[in-house]
């Protein structure tokens, strides 16, 4: 079998992997092969991915919500394809047709107080923009984030995240970027008390940490603390936004009006890179003072904005909202049934809408389940910063039959992963030892 993609081709999957190691990224390439997920994504459609081998996978990783609306969603594909007859990336210096239209749509559907939109081309850049905006607004430098948070790998964003990535490039700056444990209000207040903090940057449910859920009232109190100590509240909704919790933005469900809201990934339906920073009037000052303050050639590329308009419209439909409620109910129920079969192995379900983290009683449990899910035709990713927890992220337009199929496969895979464990591990409940800091 040879693989011909028009302007390039490979003789075999092995050859492809070899070249991937040689010309691209040997570390990543080997990691997945070693992890038992030798996936090279070829064809993609709806919520399905096909490996080069032809193996089909039901995608519940969705690249963190990038494929919220499915792969190559026909409506988004059509919007972008049609737009290429008229638009390109555009010129970032000028007022732009598509950018303005999307900005208006974003502001109209945003939490209260949001008045303007700044664009980037990826989530990390958007986080950088949010941090720069907060610093400009408050004239303060410190940004508090959550221990083991993940907000991207650009210059400022990487410093808000786990040491593993900042230290690698000597980008850790603990004095400017203090980290506090999630769900720990005392630690948060201690960090803010000095009134020298520009902003708290926080994901509504921290994805890469395995979606630990905020304790009831936690985020609301953080927002109140921000107000008390004059820090801005930056909501990172890159993974939790776009209807995944059953409302457009997860902060809506907490009644929080953030000063700044960051979106990326799914905002452009997986068809064109785009990210956006939604700011309130207080934070929007630099856009008047020096509109060229943040420059990015591809930021708010017009084709991306057109994809974004369509994706946002789909997310905002009453039908979509209702479907998310059905999907999260069905999958939640199904997972609880599975959990009841293996209560000492499948030890927890963190769920808010279709944002889900599945906890297993083994320090690397999610990696084991990921591998066995892969064997059973499902692609879900472990949480890099807490590998006990599997990120389980069904799409918001899943068909009922697809949900059933997903649950059937998941039940088998969880059982198989458990059977593959060494007996000693299986009988040693690791629950307490590995519980998340909370």
């Amino acid at each position, binding site marked *: 079998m040879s693989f011909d993609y028009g302007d390039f081709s490979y003789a075999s999957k092995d050859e492809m992997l070899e070249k991937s190691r040689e010309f691209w990224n040997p570390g990543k390439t080997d990691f997945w092969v070693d992890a038992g997920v030798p996936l090279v994504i070829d064809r993609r459609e709806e919520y399905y991915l096909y490996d080069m081998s032809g193996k089909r996978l039901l995608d519940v990783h969705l690249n963190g919500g990038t494929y919220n609306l499915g792969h190559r969603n*026909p409506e988004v594909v059509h919007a972008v394809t049609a737009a290429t007859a008229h638009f390109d990336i555009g010129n970032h210096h000028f007022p732009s047709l598509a950018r303005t239209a999307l900005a208006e749509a974003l502001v109209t559907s945003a939490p209260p107080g949001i008045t303007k939109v700044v664009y980037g081309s990826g989530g990390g850049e958007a986080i950088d923009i949010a941090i720069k905006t907060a610093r400009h607004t408050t004239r303060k430098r410190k940004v508090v984030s959550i221990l083991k948070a993940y907000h991207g790998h650009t210059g400022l964003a990487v410093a808000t995240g786990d040491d593993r990535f900042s230290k690698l490039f000597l980008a850790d700056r603990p004095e400017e970027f203090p980290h506090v444990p999630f769900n720990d209000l005392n630690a948060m207040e201690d960090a803010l008390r000095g009134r020298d903090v520009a902003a708290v940057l926080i994901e509504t449910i921290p994805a890469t940490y395995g979606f630990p859920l905020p*304790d*009831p009232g936690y985020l609301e109190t953080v927002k109140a603390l921000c107000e008390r100590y004059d820090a801005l509240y930056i909501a990172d909704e890159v993974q939790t936004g776009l209807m995944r919790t059953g409302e457009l933005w997860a902060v809506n469900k907490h009644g929080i009006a953030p000063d700044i809201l960051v979106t990326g990934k799914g905002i452009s339906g997986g068809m064109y890179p785009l990210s956006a920073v939604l700011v309130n009037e207080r934070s929007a000052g630099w856009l008047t003072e020096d509109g060229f303050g943040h420059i990015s050639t591809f930021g708010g590329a017009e084709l991306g904005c057109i994809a974004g308009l369509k994706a946002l419209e789909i997310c905002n439909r009453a*039908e979509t909202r209702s*479907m998310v*409620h059905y999907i*999260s109910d069905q999958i939640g129920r199904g997972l609880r049934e599975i959990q009841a079969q293996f209560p000492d192995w499948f030890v927890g*379900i963190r769920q*808010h809408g279709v944002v889900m983290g599945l906890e297993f009683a083994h320090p690397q449990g999610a990696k084991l389940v990921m591998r066995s899910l892969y064997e059973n035709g499902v692609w879900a990713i472990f949480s890099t910063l807490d590998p006990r927890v599997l990120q389980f992220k069904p799409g918001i337009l899943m068909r009922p039959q697809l949900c059933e199929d997903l649950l059937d496969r998941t039940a088998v895979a969880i059982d198989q992963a458990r059977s593959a464990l060494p007996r000693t591990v299986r009988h040693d409940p690791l629950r307490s030892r590995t519980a998340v800091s909370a």
Partner: protein
Amino acid sequence: MSETTVEAVGVPRARQMLELAGWASRAYARYDSATVQRIAEAVVRVAESKAEHYADWAVRETGFGVVEHKIVKNKLCSRGILDAYRDSDYVSPRIHAERKIVEVPRPAGVILALTPSTNPVSTVYFKVLLALLTRNAIVVSPHPFAKECCADAARELGKAAVAAGAPDGVVQVVDEPSIPLIDALMTDERTNVILATGGVPVVRAAYGSGNPAIGVGPGNVPVLVDATADLHRAATKLVDSKAFDNSILCTNESVLVVEESVADRFIRELERSGAYLLKDEERDRVRDVVFPEGRFDTSLVGKDASDIAARAQVRTPSRTRILLAPFDAAVDEEPLAHEKLCPVLGLVRVPNAQRGIRTAVALLRLGGAGHSAVIHSTDPGTVMAYAAAVRVLRVAVNEGGSTGCAGFGTNLAPSMTIGTGFVGRSSLGENLEPKHLVNWTQVAYSTDPAEVMPSFVGIHPEEAPLEPVPPYPVASNAGAPTLTAVPDLPEEVPTELREELRRLILEELTAIVRG
């Protein structure tokens, strides 16, 4: 859907309605009978209370029909339907101990309902109620001429259903129907059955869609009045029926076939009830107006007799409700022998009942196969000969066709969709009723006497929902969800009062059709 398909505006979202309807129908298919009844009752209350509102709106929007009569139809298609099926259960398993078979209901799933411009809101009421009684989800695609009143009505009914505990998305409606959109919905595999009411092309398209469909053919209703008929009663029934909503129901009488020996007397009776017999030149002018170039002018659908007369420059007495248009031969090239959805009634005199039956058969050869016919006679021999000869699937006897064949005033199933059977190119031979929207899984035990079928009494797959469906998603660490219980309806209307209401509606109907 392939990537090269570029879909017309509105189509992708309409497809999503089917998807949501699929979710809703799955949830609804598990509901218990008490909840289904409560939902239907809640919907009927809203439908009833808005009967006048939508009757008025429908006439305003379409220009067809008579407000008072549409009110009656709206009531018949809401409270009337619920009453008719009050004792039917399409939800609980049926146990046939003697046959060692248990039947488990399996709702169709997602119904795509095309509704006509002639009986717009009443058909929306009817189809929505049928869907709800049988635990199906429904997506309504109204006729473009009546889209506003229908969309509003469907939405109101849907809201009432959900408020009474039905799953969200169980009733949806397309706001901007278009040909490509309807075609997309009809051929979409998420549509489980199409209920097509409308013109022949729509029905044919439904059958051509590749999906299960129930569509019916047009009518062309002959009414035979023989020498044995009670002429006074027959005349009243006939004029009332022909005048009802200005002949907009497809069960309205198209051509009167009357035995010569009683013809003059019968015509005088008709005139007393509000018919006007056209003179030959007047008849010719009316024919030209109603069938310009030999084809029915659809702009005259449901117009008043006086409007049509005026257009043909015919002066009629002020209380004229229908026009009688005499002609000689029931042949294809005679336009007046064809279906007329307006208060113009063809008139053919025949020497005897035998010729009358032949004439009725001839009329049905021109159109209306499988649909309806009417006879006024007291001779069972003639009734049987007529029924056996005419190629229709219902014959109303000594009753008006409009309402009688549609199951109002007879014991036929009350319906806005009249099956025309195989002769009428339809999969349905009866009046559409709830039972047509459910299949039954048959659980069959061995006939071996050694095999004893256990009792299934008290074993129920269906259950009452405990919270809104779907439940609003909350974080899993938020503690046990507080169940927002489905609100109870106000007290059920007691049976006597219901009987009373039913009687009032019937009286109202009678009074109104009498003019």
